[in-house]
């Protein structure tokens, strides 16, 4: 078994890494909102789901690809991928902002406590997934393949595939942009201020609603990008895709320390790799068990996750 594992080590690792980067981006959606509002935005999984559909609509309907089309190459390929990425991010980002305005804002103003927004979030999540289910006739939907999945090279025994490479590099760039935004910009500073002490931030003249909207927008943009990368890698989605990925990303966020951007990064990577290795060693049926055993063990020693809970202390 060990010998087999070593044979497959690099190909498992590459698969786990690109999955991990998708988790990171979704986990950022949870973590940004939690950092600012101390609230779990359960609708984030559906924001992701909508991002996958936005990607498919661009590739299938706007660029007219089918399952029998020729693959795109050169400039046209990058145009298609770029358009799909930006559209998925915008659609998810704006949807995320709308969800906040419709489902959470009034509750927050009325100081409703933690339970009402929780139920509101679950409600939004159900409305979104059931609406898409009805629109798609309960069927899974596939993205036609626009880009040939060729191997760029060989690393030991493992082939390095183009889609995994694109995901890892682009996700790293997006993560870098997010960290810079939170740490270096005026809005980032305001977000950190609200996260640290909302009342003091209000007294300092910070527009809380604006900051919260920006947080949801940024979280949604990241989650939408995850939707694009997911579709690029797996090419399939359904109205219920958010549940599985959402739980995984939420776990990653908790593992790293929810509310902490750095935590989402390492939590996502750890989870992607852990899931892949555990599935190989113990059988795929033990994947979830292994993940949660590890999660509980981590929380025993570090109850706030690997990197603690505070968005404010983040210096990634």
């Amino acid at each position, binding site marked *: 078994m060990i010998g*087999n594992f070593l*044979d*497959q080590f690099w*190909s*498992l690792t590459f*698969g*786990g890494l690109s*999955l991990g980067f998708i988790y990171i981006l979704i986990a950022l959606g949870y973590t940004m909102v939690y950092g600012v509002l101390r609230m779990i935005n*359960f609708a984030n999984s559906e924001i992701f789901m909508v991002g996958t559909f936005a990607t498919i609509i661009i590739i299938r309907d706007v660029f007219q690809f089918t*399952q*029998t089309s020729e693959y795109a190459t050169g400039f046209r390929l990058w145009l298609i991928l770029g358009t799909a990425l930006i559209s998925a991010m915008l659609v998810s980002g704006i949807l995320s902002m709308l969800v906040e305005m419709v489902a959470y804002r009034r509750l927050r103003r009325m100081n409703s406590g933690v339970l009402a927004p929780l139920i509101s979030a*679950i409600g939004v*999540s*159900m409305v979104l997934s*059931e609406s898409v*289910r009805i629109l798609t*006739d*309960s*069927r*899974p939907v*596939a993205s*036609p*393949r626009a880009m040939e*999945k060729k191997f760029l090279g060989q690393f030991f025994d493992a*082939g390095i*595939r183009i889609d995994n490479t694109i995901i890892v590099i682009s996700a790293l760039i997006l993560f870098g942009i997010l960290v810079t935004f939170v740490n270096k910009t005026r809005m980032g500073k305001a977000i950190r201020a609200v996260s640290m002490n909302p009342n003091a931030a209000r007294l300092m003249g910070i527009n809380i609603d604006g900051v919260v909207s920006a947080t949801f927008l940024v979280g949604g943009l990241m989650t939408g990008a995850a939707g694009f990368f*997911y579709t690029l890698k*797996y*090419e*399939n989605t*359904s109205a*219920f*895709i958010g*549940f*599985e*990925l959402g739980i995984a990303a939420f776990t990653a966020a908790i593992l790293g320390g929810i509310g902490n951007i750095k935590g989402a990064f390492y939590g996502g990577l750890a989870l992607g790799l852990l*899931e*892949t*290795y*555990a*599935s*190989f060693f113990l*059988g*795929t*049926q033990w*994947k*979830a068990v292994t993940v949660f055993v590890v999660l509980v063990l981590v929380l025993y020693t570090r109850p706030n996750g690997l990197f603690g809970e505070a968005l404010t202390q983040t210096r990634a």
Partner: protein
Amino acid sequence: MKKRGLISVAAAAALAVSSLVGFAPASHAKAKTITLAFQGPLTGEEASVGQDELAGMQYAIKLFNAKNKGKYKVKVVQADDQGDPAQSAKVAPGIASNKKIIGLVGAAYSGATIAALPYYKQRGLAMVSPSATRVSITDPADGNIGFPVFHRVVPTDKVQGPALFKLATKGVSSPKVYIVDDQSAYGVGLVDYMKPTIPAGQGAGFDSVSDRTTDWSATIAKVKTAGANVVIYTGYFPQAAPFFKQLRDSGYTGILAGGDGVLSPTFVTLAPASVLEGVRLTAGTVPLAEIDAALEADFAKKMGKASGVYAAESIDATNVFLSCVAKGISKRPAMLKCVKAYSGKSLTGTTIKFNQYGDVAGGVMNGFEVKSGVIKFTGAVK
């Protein structure tokens, strides 16, 4: 998981409302109104299976109502069990105690069927399932839990498991078969019935993968380590397509095969045609389009969507009841008797006649192959 509980409550409420609507008096003055029920997953993650079967049932009824205008008007009460036994046990009492319902097409899933059976047996409601293939429901060795109300128009997994293995390895000189199930009772059962028929040295390994899996890299690594040249997936099409796609993308060139859960018109839309080329499938049915292209066209026109898996069985199951309705039957005991004595032709032309346990005798497994993005019928598996 809280989320799921809430969905169930909402679904139960929705069902209550839809049932009430279902009992509204008929507008046709003379036509005799007959009420049948459908039970299967209509919302939730398995909804596509139930919605497809319901469409098959409604199609059969549409034809019947048009033919018997002014004489009979058949209505359908929809019972949504989400494919879940717990949900099934909640909706079944309501269906069982509604005396207007004289027959039930379903349940779609075996687990949900077993959970609902006590209620239907108590009230003598005849059932004809288009797709519950679990052997134990009609197996006398298992206490024959479905007797006397349960019937089905599909051959069981006992027939399908060995047939699937046979089809997958056909023409392969030294097969090394890797078998993956989806952890469902259906998938695991198929593998259990397949296992005793696997010749020594041909089994390369097994994996059991949740039907929510989206990343298959671990299973693919195992397939490669085992050096398999045949891979069989005993699950449903939404997972089969991504699995096969990821397997092919990783460089696997051997044979891919699956059971009736994979045989859906949607399956071929979920992956590039080049990836699915040559995928082998078994099923107790034939897709409507394969039976008659005109039939599929008419179905699509009347129902507003293409037919799904088990469409033919759903029509067959409904026709069992409709033939009894046409004989003037309007009460449960008479309906049960009529179903038990039924003998008629299925859409494919085989005879549907139930044995004492409710199984249809002499079920045949058919083989299919994907060619240029279309599922082609290749004849019975022998």
